[in-house]
């Protein structure tokens, strides 16, 4: 990027590689066999909805787009950071069809000009003890990282129950899945997704 590009702000649009999503089914098998984590069947796509529009409108618009392409039914949920999560459910849990659905949601949003506002996609897993883990797909980087809320956060001296992540398990998952998925190397990009649907 030259000086003029820098001053005039002409950064090239990112070309995301959504095909990386298709590594998820094999990653799900690895998680099942090595860690006993089963897919919950819930997946979601996060983006920033333009201001001045209600969730219902966004959901209706996206649903309309998906129906045109024969896509799945979605539900829109807002979070405290100002992002909208479009939730897709499969029952019984089926990672392959979930991935196809997530791919369809991402492509529809991308094709209708929401590409720059797309943040990530999330697929969640749970083990028999109820411990939950998520695999987050970073749309712009085309990489994955694990997000595991800690099951034993405890309380601080002032009695608050802080939100904590199980960093060690996250690192284990990264090392475990490195053959199935392109994992994000820069851990500063592993942002928390507290309260994301399915976690």
């Amino acid at each position, binding site marked *: 990027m030259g000086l003029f590009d820098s001053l005039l702000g002409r950064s*090239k649009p990112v070309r995301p590689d959504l095909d990386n999503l298709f590594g998820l089914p094999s990653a799900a098998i690895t998680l099942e066999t090595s860690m006993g984590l089963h897919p919950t069947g819930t997946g979601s796509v996060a983006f920033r909805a333009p201001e001045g529009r209600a969730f219902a409108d966004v959901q209706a618009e996206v649903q309309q787009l998906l129906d045109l392409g024969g896509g799945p039914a979605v539900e829109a949920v807002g979070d405290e950071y*100002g992002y909208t999560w479009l939730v897709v459910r499969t029952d019984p849990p089926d990672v392959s069809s979930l991935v196809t659905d997530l791919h369809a949601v991402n492509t529809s949003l991308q094709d209708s000009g929401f590409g720059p506002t797309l943040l990530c996609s999330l697929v969640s897993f749970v083990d028999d003890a109820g411990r939950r883990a998520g695999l987050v797909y970073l749309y712009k980087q085309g990489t994955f990282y694990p997000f595991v809320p800690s099951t034993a956060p405890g309380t601080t001296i002032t009695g608050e129950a802080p939100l904590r992540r199980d960093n060690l398990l996250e690192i284990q998952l990264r090392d475990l899945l490195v053959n199935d998925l392109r994992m994000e190397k820069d851990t500063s990009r592993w*942002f928390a997704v507290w309260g994301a649907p399915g976690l």
Partner: protein
Amino acid sequence: MGDRTASRYGDDPVLTRATRRAVVSVVGAVVLLVVGLSVAVSLVSFKFGTFAFKAVGATHGWILLLPLAIAVLWLTRAIRRATRGDRLGSDAHELDVDHPLRVSLARLAALADVPVPPLRVVDSQRPNSYVVVEEDGTQTLCVTSSALEACTQAELDAMLAHELFHVAHGDARLTSRLEAMAELADTRVSVLSGWIVPAVRGLMRQRELSADRAAALLTSRPSDLDSAVRTCTRAVHPGPPDLRLVTAVPFVEASSGERPGWCTHPSVDERADSLARVAAQLGQR
């Protein structure tokens, strides 16, 4: 310059034209400053060594270029000195890894596809945010403690996105270089500062408008950025300005009472106009 249509978002012709004008006038200002400095050097050398200068100049014509070389050296030294970087004081502290502000920043960086810059909170009475170039060259994003108190999460998000633009484009470095130039003009050839300072500040104001626009598009919420600007400017009360902010592209003007053409930041109304264009563009999608 590559493909002209390869902008990530739609174009804002008004902003592009104004930025191009500002760049041209800064380039003009650099030329003017170099000429001004060499004239100053020539005047001084003629005063003290008219005879020697003339005698040598007759046989060695190139010596007449010496003032120009000295002027260029002078300018580059001033600029290099300005880019040595700052050290953040002990009042700058880090936030907890899972603090909402850090999570927000990581998300915005993921949206913008840029590395996540370090984030510090600096104790200050004025709500503001800025980018500091540290001695090792790291660009650190700073938010003042009173901004954390005065602004809502959405407003802070907009401020972070604005600063993220400055980090991604290295504006803090650009600004400190331009300011060094303006200061050199102001102290050495003050006749010219009436042209050079407004040119430099004009480009700085354009950078702010560009950052506003990028932040509004990144967050998809122009009105959050507008209310952040208003919250921060409303709460700016008279008092000694934070000197760190002079070269650090703050979110809102660090001091008040500058002459109109000498402001480092566009007015609240000017910023609102530019944001309204973004809102209109977002509405069309």
